[in-house]
């Protein structure tokens, strides 16, 4: 039998916004389903105070053949309201969702954005004490998102407890008071969202060598990061880089003891955490030897054609031991920079390209 969760023990206080983070298959959704009484735990106890909104996904139970009014009624009752209470809140629900004109429309004629807005609105109006949410914060357009953000703050102020499951670190850092990282069904880290975020990114980085967690802390007993920065051709440090110029990255490290060898790598990720590019090199001397003595310093310089579109970028640095013996050091956001300039292209990068259009006479048709 698969053991999806093991030794998970944590407290969430009333009024807290608590994040649960983990990679796919880490057990975070199973945990949420246990909290929501959708699954039954084989062992252990869960205790909860107050009324729970027993939904882990928005819009569940919506029937496309029914009108919004009927669906709101059904959904409200599923949330634990009485039919009378739900009817009383119907106006507030459709008003928040900005769907006043569409109350009598069957849901099959709704767009997906409208559906989510309606579902989100029902959840807010259901007035549950505890809300469980599985990655739904990014709903609707920017204006509606702002409205949702405000609503969440109101919920928090009103003493509501929210448990959010996501793999979107930015959401966790933006909303959560505390967070928990789970991996392989057990708690990796619990506490400050920023710290959990760092652990999570590390976890993603070291996917190839997950056996060694000790060495991935910033500054291990093997190697220490002295600095990482972007510089111009004269060696002056930069924080802004123009699109289309050369991007010069410099990383300096110090060996803390005698080592058989090291590989140094970096990756550039955009503000959404998407890795754009990575590269690395095995450290060797002019004579080809790779051994390093304690106290020796290593400088790695990379020169990258800056095809990145304007935006903020982060540089993560990693140091591997020789012969694939795992990660010796990982530093999340060792440095960051902003790209400006460039053409009017969307996307992450502007790739060198040629494009042409021709018009041919239509005589052949």
């Amino acid at each position, binding site marked *: 039998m698969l053991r999806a969760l093991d030794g998970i023990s944590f407290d969430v206080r009333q*009024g807290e916004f608590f994040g649960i983070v983990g990679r796919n298959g880490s057990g975070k959704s199973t945990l949420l389903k246990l909290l929501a*009484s959708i*699954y039954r735990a084989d062992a252990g*106890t869960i*205790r*909860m105070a107050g009324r729970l909104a027993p*939904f882990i996904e928005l819009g569940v*139970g919506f029937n496309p053949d029914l009108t919004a009014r*009927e669906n709101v009624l059904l959904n409200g009752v599923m949330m634990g309201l009485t039919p009378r209470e739900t009817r009383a809140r119907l106006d507030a629900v459709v008003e928040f969702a900005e769907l006043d004109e569409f109350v009598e429309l069957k849901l099959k004629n709704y767009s997906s954005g409208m559906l989510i807005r309606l579902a989100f609105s029902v959840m807010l109006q259901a007035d549950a004490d505890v809300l469980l949410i599985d990655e739904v914060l990014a709903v609707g357009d920017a204006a509606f998102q702002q409205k949702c953000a405000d609503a969440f703050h109101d919920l928090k102020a009103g003493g509501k407890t929210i448990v959010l499951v996501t793999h979107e670190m930015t959401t966790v850092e933006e909303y959560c008071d505390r967070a928990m990282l789970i991996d392989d069904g057990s708690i990796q880290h619990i506490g400050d969202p920023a710290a959990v975020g760092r652990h999570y990114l590390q976890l993603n980085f070291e996917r190839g060598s997950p056996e060694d967690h000790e060495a991935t802390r910033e500054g291990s007993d093997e190697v220490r990061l002295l600095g990482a920065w972007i510089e111009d051709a004269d060696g002056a440090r930069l924080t802004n880089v123009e699109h289309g110029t050369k991007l010069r990255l410099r990383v300096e490290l110090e060996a803390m003891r005698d080592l058989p060898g090291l590989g140094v790598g970096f990756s550039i990720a955009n503000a959404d955490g998407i890795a754009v590019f990575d590269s690395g090199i095995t450290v060797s001397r002019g004579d080809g030897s790779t051994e390093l003595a304690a106290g020796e310093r290593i400088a790695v310089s990379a020169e990258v054609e800056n095809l990145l579109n304007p935006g903020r970028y982060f540089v993560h640095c990693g140091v591997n031991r020789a012969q694939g013996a795992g990660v010796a050091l990982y530093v999340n956001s060792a440095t960051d920079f902003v790209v400006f300039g460039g053409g009017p292209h969307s996307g992450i990068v502007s790739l060198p390209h040629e494009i042409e259009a021709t018009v041919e006479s239509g005589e052949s048709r």
Partner: protein
Amino acid sequence: MSDRVRAVGPLREVHGPSAVGGGARRFFDLLWLLSVTEFKRTYFGTVLGYVWSLIRPLMLFGVLLFVFTKVFKIGSELPNYPVLLLLGIVLFTLFSEATQNAVTSVVSQEGVVRKTQFPRLVIPLATVLTSSFNFCLNLIVVFVFILAWGVDPTWTWLLFPFAVLALFVFTCAVSTMLSVLYVRFRDVAIIWVVLSQVLFYATPVLYPIELLEDPRIEQLLMVNPIAVIFEQVRVWILAEPAAPTAAAAAGGALHLLPAVAVYVGVCAFSVWIFNRDAPRIAEDL
């Protein structure tokens, strides 16, 4: 933060999913709402609306009446045959329609089962309740027909609701059992189509029971709880002197015990299996 926050109550243990989880009030609210919306959806979505719920059994009635009075001549020997036939069809439609719809109900509501804490028992029961709404409408037509046929009301008509209640409870039990078995054994759907046909013929709907003439077969038939209910309905509604009561058909009141045992057994098994499987339905789906 905590000084502004009002405590929402004591910590209670979360027991996980169950057949009726989430409180009795929510259970009945959901059951009622689900049944009513499903009923409305079925009949408001069609051109003739509620009329369809009447036409289906009436069509069957017309065809069978023709076959069994003009072709096989069974019916023409019995004065009240059309009344008996219509009553039987409408009663059996409640059972067959509800159970047939219930088989796939839990699986087709996969979304709510896997994504919300939904009292599982509501789902099969809602299909029974929806069919019961149809049944009530049909019943109006049946009684108009019975009176028009010239059957005089007697005090035993007052017993009819008890027979309906017995049938309703049995239908709920069978529906619940089938819906949860179907989650793990998809063959149930096919088996049940055949089995409900068998049950239809093992119930004195098309033929009056005394026509069998062999008391052993009559006794065998009276093991079927639905047959017992139908026979009693016939006695209570039509008040025919020739019609044997269920006890008489079984060969004595004691011989009704097997039917009672089947009835209670099915109900008990249904409760047991649903309770056992309800917490795991979301995982088995």
